[in-house]
């Protein structure tokens, strides 16, 4: 049972990491809590579902879901967030929330209010290891594999490529980066494309894992991802992964051994508040020099 719970925790944590990565990237550069990213999560899943119905080809469905959502991210950045950058962060926050509400209801009107099944998981059989008392879902391999691959790609992009250099410079200080001759507009656009693409991947994978997508599927990620990115130190991708695993594991172990003395989400926030009391800058955040 213990091993099973550890694996359960890792899977839950990976799902959180994937879900929060898009918003982490956006925060890293723009310093806004981008709730509409949770709308992109649902949008990506729905686009994918649409193409699965049309073509019956899972690969086409995934690629189109991610690509079109990334384009949507570019549009959102260009026409909504960019003009609001010099305003109070509350403005961008509320604009993002408005967009999120709009998207959810748009999906309900177009796709219907019922949950629909995103059934490409059926072809992946579960693996059972009776010796260890373990069951590993077929879809878990997909989730864990995708998380690992995407994080490696992201790590490479940010740390080993020129794009990453520009990204890090812009994240540190947009004005200085601009003065140094970095095309920050391009970095910001790229950032949104990547961030919304990540959201779409997360939405599709979670849709496959639970075999269901529904218009309000972004509701929980909308606040959960904020807890994860804040705990990770705001805008630090590695911190986000670590925080996601901490929260996923804490929820799973408490749920499995102690029982839910509070709802799952409240437990996540209790963990967050306790850790922030100890480290106000998050797990991997650097204390700002004042």
């Amino acid at each position, binding site marked *: 049972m213990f091993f099973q719970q550890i694996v359960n925790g890792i899977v839950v944590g990976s799902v959180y990491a994937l879900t929060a990565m898009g918003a982490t990237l956006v925060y890293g550069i723009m310093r806004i*809590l981008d709730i509409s990213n949770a709308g992109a999560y649902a949008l990506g899943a729905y686009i994918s579902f649409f193409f699965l119905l049309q073509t019956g080809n899972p690969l086409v469905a995934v690629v189109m879901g991610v690509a079109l959502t990334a384009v949507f991210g570019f549009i959102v950045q260009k026409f909504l967030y960019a003009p609001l950058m010099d*305003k109070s*962060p509350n403005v961008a926050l509320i604009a993002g929330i408005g967009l999120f509400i709009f998207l959810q209801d748009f999906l309900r009107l177009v796709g219907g209010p019922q949950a629909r099944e995103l059934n490409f998981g059926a072809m992946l059989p579960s693996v059972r290891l009776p010796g260890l008392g373990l069951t590993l879902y077929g879809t878990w391999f997909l989730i864990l594999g995708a998380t690992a691959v995407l994080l490696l790609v992201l790590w490479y992009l940010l740390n080993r490529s020129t794009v990453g250099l520009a990204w890090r410079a812009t994240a540190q200080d947009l004005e200085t980066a601009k003065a140094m001759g970095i095309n920050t507009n391009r970095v910001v656009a790229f950032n949104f494309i990547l961030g919304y693409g990540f959201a779409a991947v997360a939405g599709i994978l979670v849709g496959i894992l639970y075999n269901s997508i529904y218009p309000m599927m972004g509701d929980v990620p909308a606040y959960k991802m904020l807890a994860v990115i804040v705990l990770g130190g705001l805008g630090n991708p590695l911190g986000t992964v670590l925080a996601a695993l901490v929260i996923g594991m804490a929820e799973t172990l408490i749920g499995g051994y102690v029982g839910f003395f509070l*709802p799952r989400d409240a437990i996540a926030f209790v963990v967050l508040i306790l850790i922030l*009391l100890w480290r106000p800058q998050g797990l991997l955040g650097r204390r700002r020099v004042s």
Partner: protein
Amino acid sequence: MYEQVVAINVGLAMLLAMSLNIITGFAGQPTLGHAAFYGIGAYTSALLTAKAGWPFFLALPAAGAMAALVGVLLGLFSVRVREDFLAVTTIGINFVVVAIFQYVQLFGASLGLAVPKPEFLGVRFGNTEILGLLILLNALVYLFMRHLPNSWLGLALGGVRNDEEAAASLGYNADHYKVFAFTIGTFIAGMTGSVYAHFMGFISSTDFAFPVSIGVLSMAVLGGLGSVTGPLIGALILTLAPEVFRFVSDYRMLVYGGLLVLMMRFQPQGLVGDDSYLQRLWTKIRGRREEGKANAG
């Protein structure tokens, strides 16, 4: 009567938006969990009147006080944790408070709580009396808000919002004022919660969930954070919108979301904030009138 109920909803929203404005608009501290305090007030008042037999007019300030007590704790927390970390912490407080209402038997847990209608001097409060009370509370809070920016407290809060270090160098202790703003703001939210509970006659934990906090913040930002009248207008618009658009039942939330996006995009300073369309229009009208006066004179 239907119109009274709508007016009550507007009145409740206005109080909430003004109370949030003290914390976020005047003192510049992010609050994404304001509904927690609204809920603490509602549950406090419900328990005091239903279980302890207190009269409503004692339970009302007690509800405010209970909310303010938790507000002070959050204020102290805000001294240590900054900006977006604080913003997300307030979300956390919202979730934890709702979870406690949902899990603890005393608060009715998942069945919610029935709340008695208030009585005062033998008059059982119906919607008319509740509306009267709300107009009174709104007027009081509004007058307080009007005088706040020009008072020493308001100046200090503005200092905290704009530049904490400069404020500190002028001898203001920024931390004290932050805690103070949280205390007043949450006190008003708590009282509002009490009125809500007695108006509804039944409360449950989800009435105070995170989306409610988002709604209140949207009202304040939409109208113009830091302005005195802005949050009132925001509350009016965002409370009436779903009622007005009731006839397009299926598209109501689409319209609501779209409205938020467009208003933020094109009036980011709020509807009556500095250099907003309405503000400019007003200056223009006023300028013309002065001109007229000058010509006549």
